[in-house]
């Protein structure tokens, strides 16, 4: 019988697993330059269309700045959907899932590695989108408090990727539903999060819509970042956003852990963990 690992050894091996998974993600996503160029260039097409629409209906240039930040945040949502939520589905299709399941590490450390790699990768792309957007569309920003922007940004990413961990667990046993569900969660979330609106928390937007949108961490973080970066507001005006983002993380993380354990156990009972081409 193998000796039981000490808590320190267990922690170290899980951290190493997270690092290894992050490394694969960073390496895999950045070795193909066409992918990087497309992931920065493609959102600019959509952002450009909305900036021109804003101009067509006479909204001020700050609305263009709002849509550029929204477009950059959408890159994170897309990453959460396709590279976090659907990841177990891809792994099962390519035959890797069983290897993860027999590895002597927590599945949460694998998800953590995916989240860290995904957030670093997407941050590079989001920065590219913002810089290219500013260069092409010449929109104004007021970066009075960059540290606060950084803080809100990090809190938003943590909450968002924790949500991704929860979705990954729920999607674990999906077949083609994974693909279709990820597709389904694109435009409706772009709408609910107000990514392409100047502001979601505006009087003209129905309260029910604002409430539904607030269930998505991106909506809260996006509004806070826009207030700081476009309106030049201080951190004192966005403390409810910060509390909400921390609360989202604290609620979603244990949920993700429980969902993962439940879905794994269900998959074992139903024999679906290695089932391909569903």
């Amino acid at each position: 019988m193998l000796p039981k690992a000490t808590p320190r050894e267990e922690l170290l091996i899980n951290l190493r697993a997270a690092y290894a998974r992050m490394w694969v993600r960073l390496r895999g996503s950045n070795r193909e330059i066409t992918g990087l160029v497309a992931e920065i260039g493609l959102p600019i097409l959509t952002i450009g269309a909305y900036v021109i629409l804003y101009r067509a209906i006479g909204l001020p240039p700050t609305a263009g700045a709002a849509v550029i930040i929204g477009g950059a945040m959408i890159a994170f949502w897309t990453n959460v959907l396709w590279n976090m939520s659907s990841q177990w589905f891809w792994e099962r299709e390519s035959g890797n899932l069983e290897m993860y399941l027999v590895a002597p590490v927590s599945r949460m450390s694998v998800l953590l590695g995916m989240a860290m790699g995904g957030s670093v990768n997407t941050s590079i792309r989001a920065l590219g989108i913002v810089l290219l957007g500013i260069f092409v569309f010449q929109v104004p920003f007021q970066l009075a408090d960059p540290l606060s922007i950084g803080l809100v940004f990090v809190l938003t990413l943590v909450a968002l990727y924790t949500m991704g961990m929860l979705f990954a667990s729920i999607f674990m046993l999906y077949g083609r539903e994974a693909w279709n569900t990820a597709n389904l969660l694109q435009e409706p979330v772009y709408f609910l999060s107000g990514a392409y609106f100047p502001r979601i928390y505006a009087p003209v937007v129905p309260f029910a819509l604002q409430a539904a949108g607030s269930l998505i961490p991106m909506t809260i973080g996006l509004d806070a970042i826009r207030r700081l970066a476009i309106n030049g507001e201080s951190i004192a005006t966005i403390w409810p956003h910060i509390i909400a983002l921390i609360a989202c993380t604290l609620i979603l993380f244990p949920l993700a852990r429980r969902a993962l354990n439940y879905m794994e156990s269900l998959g074992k009972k139903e024999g679906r963990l290695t089932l391909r081409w569903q």
Partner: protein
Amino acid sequence: MAVADFVKSAGESFRVGWKIESNWTDPVLFATYQVIRPLASLLIVAFIVIIGASVGAAANSAFYTQYLAWLIVGNAFYAFVLQIMLGMAILVHVDRTRYEVLKNIYISPGTLHPYVIGRGLVSVVNGGVSVVLTLLFSVAIFNGLLHMNIPLNLLGVNLLMLFPAVILGIISLLAIGYMLCAVNIVSNRMEFILGDSVSGIFFLLGGVIFPVALLPSYVQPISNVLPITFLLNAVRESFGLLPAGNYMSDLAYLGLTTLVTLIIGITVFRLAEQRAKKLGLFDRKSEY
């Protein structure tokens, strides 16, 4: 006889494609799925216009209601672009890498051509359902619920003007989808980029949510060679949202651009097919 075989093969391909697209869930959820995405896209642009109207940004309320009608029609028919581009761009990858059947289809008597057409027609049906549902929901939401009096009369559409434009538009989009399949046959790195790239370019340059005249002048010549530009013009004319006087010229340009894309599409596909056969690409694996 050859035509009958082609039609039969395309029909079988359509049947397979429809099952793959639809039988992952129950019909109600599938129908919901079909309507939610285009409706959400529409609501995004509609709310931008509503927010613009609420701050009194540009003009009087009549401007906004007319603009909203113009935008709803453009956005609804853009569903054809999205469905066909995204569906056909991923087709080769899924069949070659995931299901590993592309080589079997290629060596079958039917060959790839009717197969691609049949699968493309599934996207056309999905797009058609999205268009109809989006238009119905738009009228129900903006005129029924929000009482915005948008000048959009679905019963007053001139079908004789609408159908030729839509048929030509679909042929041109299928021809472009054909090109995407061809690119994917000889490449294994573009499958997740191509559909979004082409549909994104069409969204920006095709006059979907704003008139082409608002684009920078150096980009407008590109818009004026895209079939989608003339398709949307002709469709809006059939809905009475643009002067009908330009309909025949728009239809003629649509026909011309469709013919050109069709010729290019078939040529590119044949070249890709030859190259793939020479290099043994029909059974290449790209996922491990």
